[in-house]
């Protein structure tokens, strides 16, 4: 039988605020355990939560970016369950009235655009961490993360393959970073997801029973976890079994999913509106402010790059994959005044290659847009050849000098003086009568030898076009 996979994702994006969602404690990552947990985060008797306004602004920004309904009125609710790293015995989240309603996002698969529905996005606080190692059979609790703001983005079950799920997750990842509401750091857990996965015979209308895969924190694992789960479900059904609704954990070491708890064992969270917090009202002023502050979004930017810079779709996708990279590109184009294609080639091939190799991102690039522009100018005005340019690029990477300084210091200026080139070429012809003979008898390949000799004699600085032209004239 042919099976169809149905996937919906719940993505948790940690909002990039300085302080927590309901307290003034810092959200910085990696501090000593329990040094960033104040009385409110510890859930001490008598403390009360106070909403961080910045969190609301960020959620509204996200809502507008996915063209969602931003609720004029939303409500925080208590989600009740006991766990040692959940200090209050309830998590403050949103249930019936989330801040962001129905929206959508387009993904591109094999050149085709597919629209994925976003059901809702709501605000909530993160829990702390339970540390099971190093405590000799006991459990340690670190509450630094408790109260960190999260935006939970819930999709419709619109994805039909693990690849689509990854494409959607990447798109959300790109978007939240564009909006500067989440740093997207997956190692630190700032961006993670749960996947709801089910299968059904192709053509069937009703959904199959789903399993929820918990807390997957890389694109690679999302794809693997979904694929392995789909395989498990199909094998199960084809073997005469039935899928049960349950929460499963993906084990990346063994590449398998295993049951955490079934629906029957699931908590009754007893949600109810949190009486300590007022409903969140989104004023028109805030809406207007957020609208004005909304950056150009990835899809729009990509279309503009295609149109304005005559870039192809693939290059535009690469250049707009992050806001910083797109800005970098535009700033290089502007300050160099060079042809757009030259700029994009150097950025996507040379710069991104070097960045990847060094495992750093564009923000940490040792070559800023100004210095790269300086190099491109010298390529375009023929001061240096493309080959020499690569040499200059390496020096730019390792130093703080400008391209002009490097060219000057190392004497890399291209020789365009035809008199000087002529002298060199004449000498080469005189010194290599045998090759001249061969060439004149019809062995065209030998031409390359003369060019090579000329470049060698000038340490690559001769203008290749000039050399070609002159050799052709002389060897007639």
């Amino acid at each position, binding site marked *: 039988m042919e099976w169809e996979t149905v996937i919906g994702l719940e993505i948790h994006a940690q909002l990039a605020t300085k302080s927590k969602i309901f307290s003034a404690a810092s959200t910085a990552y990696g501090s000593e355990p329990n040094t960033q947990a104040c*009385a409110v985060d*510890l*859930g*001490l*008797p*008598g*403390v*009360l*939560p*106070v*909403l961080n306004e910045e969190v609301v602004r960020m959620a509204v920004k996200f809502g507008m970016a996915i063209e969602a309904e931003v609720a004029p009125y939303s409500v925080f609710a*208590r989600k*009740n369950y*006991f766990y*040692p790293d959940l*200090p*209050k*015995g*309830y998590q403050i989240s949103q249930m019936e009235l989330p801040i962001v309603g129905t929206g959508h996002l387009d993904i591109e698969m094999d050149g085709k655009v597919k629209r994925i529905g976003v059901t809702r996005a709501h605000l909530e606080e993160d829990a702390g961490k339970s540390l099971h190692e190093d405590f000799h059979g006991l*459990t340690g*609790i670190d509450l630094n993360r408790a109260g960190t703001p999260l935006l939970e983005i819930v999709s419709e079950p619109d994805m039909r393959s693990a690849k689509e799920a990854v494409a959607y997750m990447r798109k959300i990842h790109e978007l939240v970073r564009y909006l500067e509401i989440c740093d997207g750091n997956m190692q630190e857990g700032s961006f993670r997801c749960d996947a709801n996965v089910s299968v059904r015979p192709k053509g069937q209308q009703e959904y199959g029973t789903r399993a929820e895969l918990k807390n997957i924190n890389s694109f690679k694992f999302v794809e693997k976890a979904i694929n392995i789960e789909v395989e498990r479900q199909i094998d199960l059904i084809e073997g005469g079994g039935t899928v049960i609704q349950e929460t499963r954990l993906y084990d990346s070491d063994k590449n398998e999913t295993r049951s955490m708890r079934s629906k029957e064992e699931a908590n*009754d969270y*007893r*949600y*109810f509106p949190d*009486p*300590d*917090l*007022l409903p969140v009202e989104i004023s028109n002023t805030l809406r207007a402010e957020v609208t004005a502050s909304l950056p150009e979004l990835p899809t729009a930017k990509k279309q503009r790059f295609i149109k304005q810079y005559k870039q192809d779709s693939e290059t535009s996708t690469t250049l707009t994959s992050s806001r910083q990279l797109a800005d970098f590109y535009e700033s290089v184009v502007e300050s160099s005044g060079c042809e757009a294609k030259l700029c994009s080639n150097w950025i996507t091939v040379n710069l991104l290659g070097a960045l990847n190799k060094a495992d750093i991102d564009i923000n940490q690039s040792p070559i800023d847009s100004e210095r790269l522009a300086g190099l491109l100018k010298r390529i375009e005005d023929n001061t240096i050849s493309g080959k020499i340019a690569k040499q200059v690029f390496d020096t730019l990477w390792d130093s703080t000098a400008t391209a002009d300084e490097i060219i000057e210091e190392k004497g890399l200026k291209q020789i365009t003086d035809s008199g000087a080139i002529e002298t060199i070429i004449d000498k080469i012809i005189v010194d290599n009568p045998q090759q001249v003979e061969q060439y004149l008898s019809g062995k065209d390949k030998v031409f390359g030898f003369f060019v090579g000799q000329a470049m060698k004699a000038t340490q690559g600085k001769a203008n290749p076009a000039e050399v070609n032209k002159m050799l052709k004239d002389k060897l007639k």
Partner: protein
Amino acid sequence: MHNKTITDLAKGLRSQEFSSVELTQAYLKRIKKHTDLNCYITFTEEQALKSAQQADKQLSSGKTSLLTGIPIAQKDIFCTQDVKTTCGSKMLDTFIAPYNATVIEKFNLAGAVMLGKLNMDEFAMGSSNETSFYGAVKNPWQTDSVPGGSSGGSAVAVSARLAVAVTGTDTGGSIRQPASLCGITGLKPTYGRVSRYGMIAFASSLDQGGPMARSAEDAAILLQTMAGFDEKDSTSVDKDVPDYSTGLNNSIEGLKIGLPKEFFNEGLNNDIANTIETAVSEYKKLGAEVKEVSLPNMKLAIPAYYVIASAECSANLSRFDGVRFGYRCDNPADLNDLYIRSRGEAFGSEVKRRILMGTYALSAGYYDAYYIKAQKIRRLIADDFKQALSEVDILMGPVSPTTAFGIGEKTNDPIEMYLADIYTIAVNLAGLPAMSIPAGFVENKPVGLHVIGNYFTEDKLLNIAHKYQQVTNWHLQTPKGFE
């Protein structure tokens, strides 16, 4: 000295008739003499004398408030830094708060001297102070009777002159009912008038701190310090605090008093009904007009309250899990055992009952039938009050259907106990301000007059109470043996 008002004491301190240290010592002596009443859980003698010394210095330097050097006491529900804060529970028997509640902070700034922390029903759940882990509190008017609750220790401290004035909290009547049963003046402010930060939560949407004192005049001085917006409490209201003392003597001629007919039903003791009628006629003499009004949904107040308050408390008390603070059982076998035994061993039966009720009411399949319905009733009750208060300026009636009942009399019948708050609970559901004013005695036990005002009219309530206290002396009565 212990029968003087705050205003008189403030004058005495300034004319150096006595010092704050002397005043504090006098109170400490009285407290030690009457420990059998059991109204203090923690007694902060050393700290009190230290703050009294500091107050004396301030008094001589001139930077003072009316409360500088005045010995008061706090309900043990307010977190006090470096002082045990128990909330009347075994759960917090060893809990030393690492911070001050906003209300405590304000009293400290005003230079008030804290004598200690007052007994209360466990987590403020109770109407007789008998659910306290620290034992029942005796009513000084008749020591085999309860003082009411949950602020029972607070009411007794004022009534027996073991503090000049005190704080209480009122979720369903916990200031007014004990004030009524102990013959003192208690004010539950409008929800949002006093910060709840650092006040251990029972039912967050109903809890409100307020003053308990001998007179409206003293209550006004306390409320002045307690009231105001607090950025640490999102439900506190950012609204100017009027001067509560300046209008106390305003004329109340033409005041329109409404008597809700549902307050005078068959459940009300006849003698109490007569006492309330006498008090109302006193107001007529002062120029007030009286009219009958109706609060048709009153009968739904108790069931709605017990759903909402219990639902909220079931979540509010989840933080007491034996993990970070408070009681932890010995040698837990695993996590579940830690939870079950820590909570099982440290919560009293009334607290457990309410957690169970609340958990049930919020459970899947019951939420709409209980919680949502109760919220709708809450709205209806608020609308009833809105309607009534559009016809009249103020509502009056009894605070409690009975006078102080015997210790142990109702402990086995929770429903009977819940009915003790039948007249007070609706006010919390509506979030309105209300007072209990001493209005007479029935069989030597005090009776309180319930006065309910519109939102943020605490100044008017105090004015109305003060005018009455100018022409009556019920609030000046002292129980025998405590004169």
